[in-house]
């Protein structure tokens, strides 16, 4: 069995390396920890969801409550993710292609949402748009609802996924430099064709990667959405909130059935993410081989 475990670096026969039994023990310990802390919680979701059989599972999912929640979740993600993609492209274009005063500050400001607790993020929007917030009186005069309504959920989702695309694109585009775009401009390409025909094909993998991470987080966001949603049945309940409400009503099978759909989305995210990593690693190593 220990023969299956190799060092990842090229020279297998380096002197003085830990004995194979020690290596085996380390690998087994790490795999054991991953199973205990990560695989079991994931597996448990599906086991609980199917504990009473397929039919109960299907019946639990096929309720108006869950279908409405699913629709709302997808609708919110369909608004929040594209907005953050546009922002990510604009921010990385400005930051990677131009030098300007305050660039470093801008880059660190973009990261702020990563440091903020989701609940605090939700609270921020309550202080702007809530009845007691800055814009609250004006909004209620015009009969507009943001907090305890869908716009608030969209805003909270935008906030928590705000940096995801920008963070993938900025370092990538900075490393690539702007020679290709400059060449296109010199050759007479207009702004639109520079973007669509030079930049976009170059950044498609990191763009997709950031988009997937943002989509996964928007579908699963709980804390920030929980603060601004108000938990109004059929109106402002997203899938993660439905999981919470069903669980708190001791309807465990339905809670885990809804959770299993979210877990499936998470597993698909992990697979696509890994596939992009492997394919870009492959492209990079191919490029390196060709340049040698």
């Amino acid at each position, binding site marked *: 069995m220990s023969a299956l475990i190799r060092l990842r670096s090229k020279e297998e026969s380096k002197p003085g390396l830990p004995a194979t039994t020690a290596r085996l023990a380390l690998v087994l310990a790490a795999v054991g920890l991953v199973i205990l802390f990560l695989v079991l919680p994931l597996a*448990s979701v599906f086991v609980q969801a199917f504990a009473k059989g397929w039919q109960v599972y299907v019946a639990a999912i096929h309720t108006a409550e869950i279908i409405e929640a699913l629709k709302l979740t997808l609708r919110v993600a369909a608004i929040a993710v594209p907005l953050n993609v546009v922002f990510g492209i604009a921010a990385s274009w*400005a930051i990677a292609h131009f030098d300007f005063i305050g660039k470093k500050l801008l880059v660190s400001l973009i990261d702020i949402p990563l440091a903020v607790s989701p609940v605090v993020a939700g609270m921020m929007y309550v202080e702007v748009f809530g009845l007691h917030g800055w814009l609250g009186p004006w909004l209620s005069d015009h009969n507009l609802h943001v907090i305890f309504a869908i716009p608030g959920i969209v805003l909270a989702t935008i906030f928590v996924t705000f940096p995801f695309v920008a963070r993938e694109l900025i370092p990538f585009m900075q490393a690539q430099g702007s020679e290709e775009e400059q060449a296109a401009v010199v050759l007479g390409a207009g702004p639109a064709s520079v973007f669509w025909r030079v930049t976009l094909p170059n950044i498609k993998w990191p763009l997709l990667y950031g988009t997937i991470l943002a989509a996964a987080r928007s579908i699963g966001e709980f804390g920030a959405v929980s603060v601004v949603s108000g938990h109004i049945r059929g109106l402002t309940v997203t899938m993660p909130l439905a999981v919470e409400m069903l669980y708190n009503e001791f309807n465990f099978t339905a809670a885990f059935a809804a959770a299993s759909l979210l877990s499936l989305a998470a597993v698909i995210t992990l697979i696509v993410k890994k596939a992009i990593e492997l394919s870009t690693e492959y492209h990079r190593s191919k490029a390196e081989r060709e340049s040698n």
Partner: protein
Amino acid sequence: MTELAQKQRSWTLKQPSPLPGFGLSLGYTLLYLTAIVLIPLVAIVVRSLDGGTAAFAHAIEAPRVAAAFRVTLESALLASLLAASYGFLIAWVLARYDFPGRRIVDALIDLPFALPTAVAGISLTTLYSPNGWIGSHLEPLGIHIVFRQAGIVLAMSFVSLPFVVRSVQPVIEELDPAMEEAAISLGANDWQVFSRVLAPAALPALVTGTALAFARAAGEYGSVIFIAGNMPMKTEIAALLVVTKLEEFDYAGASAIAVAMLAISFIVMFALNLLQWKLQSRKGVRT
């Protein structure tokens, strides 16, 4: 002439470039950043101080709030240290060894990022409850997890594990084998190579990962509230208290706690940037 051009350039906002779209892309970026992040951030800080600093201090110092902060910070510290220890082992194994299923294990590390926190919360609670898969084995040993602070620590360490692994793993992967070989040729044994050469080189990344893990754990909500039991003064975390105060229409109280949480995470991030800046400048001197 060139000096003049240099001087002129330093006074303009941006360096000249043949590429189009500077005004549009930067303008949109600033507008969106201001609307989504900066205005709400200023709003909550200003609103929390509406009643003056004395009222703010009063809201934070209330026994129930102080207890929530103690539970939160204590649990986040324990959770990040726990995640640091097993995260380091996992990162080490993933970076150094090839074994069947390595890619699957590697992909699974990001599960806590991808899995919605509410799902993680109900799943961990079920697993560690007295009749759950794991809890039923711990209960006879007198180990209680669910509805105790141990449960909070467990949930927090679950969500913060990827921060440690993803900070440490690339650094171990890029360690120069020559350092190790030099140590071996100088007569160091395995333990000495690890403890005196490899571990110190990976330490800054481990500190970074642990600090990120701490910040995430201190702000965590979804995965914790199900397993915590939420008993005021004992197992109630700060994030939950924000929600509770909001449900009681105590906006000032909720905002004060939220701003204190904001301050904690900004302090952690600032310290982290300072550390990285220091390490970078030290590296710069050496090379």
